[in-house]
């Protein structure tokens, strides 16, 4: 279990995150939602160990994050960043391979090939990363994260997968499949934390939702508790939007997972 206790991050006099408590349980798909500038990415940076909070502490399975070495952390948690651009022509496989190497894989190239297959990019191994489309690049990065933590649980310790807007720049089908892969990871006993902007996806996939607003947790719980008219109005400034259908003549598509 990953536990963050009373996290506060202050930058140039502004509280980006203020007194946040959050617990990421094995087997649980946790999703953070909230408007731009709510402190979602900052909170994820603190949880992944990338940023030190000004106050509060984070622990991984009872061990304080500050005394974990980066290479040990890398073996039990992977992070999918937002869009990454490169000026060097690594192939898709070489990018993914880096994740497998960080995991300490014995045959990193083979692990990388498997990870690319998991995100539906078999046949893309040879392609230079800069020549891929934004969505394909995002999926290569997801494959790299999967190659870094290929199993949800290793030696009895649950691994963690952090996804910062994993569905940005993906088409509907791939949005679903990325989140399904993440949900399978959680079902197998892993820890998943994702930042999502699409509330429908959040409602569909999250076991636990955290609503962040002005750096504070406004609501934390299952989707029916967290996505309500009150909270959406308070956080996003749009009232009465939950469950309201568009006008009769307007077609709409809600993302739907395939196996549920």
């Amino acid at each position, binding site marked *: 279990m990953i536990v963050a206790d009373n996290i506060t991050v202050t930058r140039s006099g502004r509280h980006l995150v203020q007194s946040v408590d959050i617990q990421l349980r094995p087997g649980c798909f946790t999703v953070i939602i909230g408007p731009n500038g709510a402190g979602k990415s900052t909170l994820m*940076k603190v949880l*992944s*160990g*990338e940023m030190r909070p000004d106050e509060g502490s984070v622990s991984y399975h009872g061990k304080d994050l500050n005394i974990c*070495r*980066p*290479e*040990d*952390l*890398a*073996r039990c*948690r*992977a*992070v999918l*960043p937002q869009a*990454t*651009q*490169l*000026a*060097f*022509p*690594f*192939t*898709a*496989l*070489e*990018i993914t*391979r*880096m*994740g497998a*190497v*960080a995991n300490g894989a014995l045959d990193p*190239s*083979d692990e*990388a*090939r498997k990870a690319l297959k998991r995100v539906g990019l078999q046949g*893309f*191994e*040879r*392609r230079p990363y*800069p020549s891929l489309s934004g969505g394909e690049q995002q999926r290569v990065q997801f494959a790299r994260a999967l190659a*870094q933590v290929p199993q949800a649980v290793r030696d009895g310790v649950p691994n963690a997968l952090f996804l910062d807007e994993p569905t940005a720049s993906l088409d509907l089908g791939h949005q679903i499949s990325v989140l399904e892969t993440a949900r399978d990871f959680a079902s197998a006993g892993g820890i998943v934390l994702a930042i999502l902007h699409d509330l429908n996806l959040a409602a569909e996939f999250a076991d636990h939702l955290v609503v962040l607003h002005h750096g504070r947790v406004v609501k934390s719980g299952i989707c029916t508790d967290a996505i309500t008219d009150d909270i959406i109005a308070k956080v996003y400034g749009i009232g009465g939007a939950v469950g309201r259908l568009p006008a009769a003549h307007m077609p709409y598509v809600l993302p739907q997972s395939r196996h549920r």
Partner: protein
Amino acid sequence: MKTLSLPLRPAIEGDRTQQGILVMAGLAVLLVVACLISLGVGPTGVGLADLFAYLTGNADKLTTQERVILEAVRLPRTALGLLVGAGLAVSGAMMQGLFRNPLADPGIVGVTAGAGLAAVAAIVLGNGILAPLALLLGNQFLPLMAFFGGLINTWALYLIATRDGRTSTTALILCGIAIGALTAAVMGLLIVMADDRQLRDITFWSLGSLGGATFGRVASILPFIACVLVIIPFVARGLDALILGDAAAFHMGIPVQRLKKIIIVAVAAACGSTVAVAGSIGFVGIVVPHLLRLAMGPSHRFLLPGSALGGGALLLIADSVARTVAAPAELPIGVITALFGAPVFLFLLLGKNGISMRDLP
């Protein structure tokens, strides 16, 4: 008959490990050839046949003079060229990785100029206010001064041009121009203060040359280059990860800040020590890594050792040309590398497979 097969499983698509090993083997052969050319070619009558006789144990066939030329003139010069070329190319490759930018080169961004300035300051002030330091450090005074010059420069460049882990190409190049201007101004001051002998030395630094190579110079640069080469296996994976960004590198278990400090010191050591013994030789640091990226991909596992081999080979060949085309006069090697390197660099900017301007940060 059974065909010869490598004891490796067939390469996985997109994995360029075997390609890298092949290119490295090719570079090693090239380097040996370059060493033979450098040892066996020159303005004097000592040629490849004499070298061959010498190497096969028939040294007594050679006159004493021929032996002296081989042992005391060409051998140190070849060793120096090898070390300088390796240092220049590896420092270029490391800097490009550190700045996540294929255009970063110690020569272009002004680190060479800073190291050269420190070297010139050491020459001019070595008898004056820096005399106690010069006495204390002895032979290592000049390389150490150049190293610290390069270190201050690289560090300043990194602080100025990098924001939130991203380096702007524009800031990098502009920074190089500003540092170059500052260096030129201080250099001017030092030239006014210099006497005739010092002026000659200063001219030597600014053009770059392997002339006057001695085993003393080889010994003074060797520890620096050896340290830089020894760390390659320990930084290669980190530099690969760093290409994806500071955050991603940290997520993959790289101690990012420590790695960057090591790289900055290594770049300064390689660059400073080469400037101290051979002056500023341009374009090796950018052309060699680029050609290698085209041949085997950008992974530093092969790029860094490959740059060491390729840089050594390129510099030895360039030096052999510099010694022979206008014999008995000798061209400055910086002229040869620029004549070859600048067009290649421009071609890379144009080419489809080279640097894509669009992808630069």
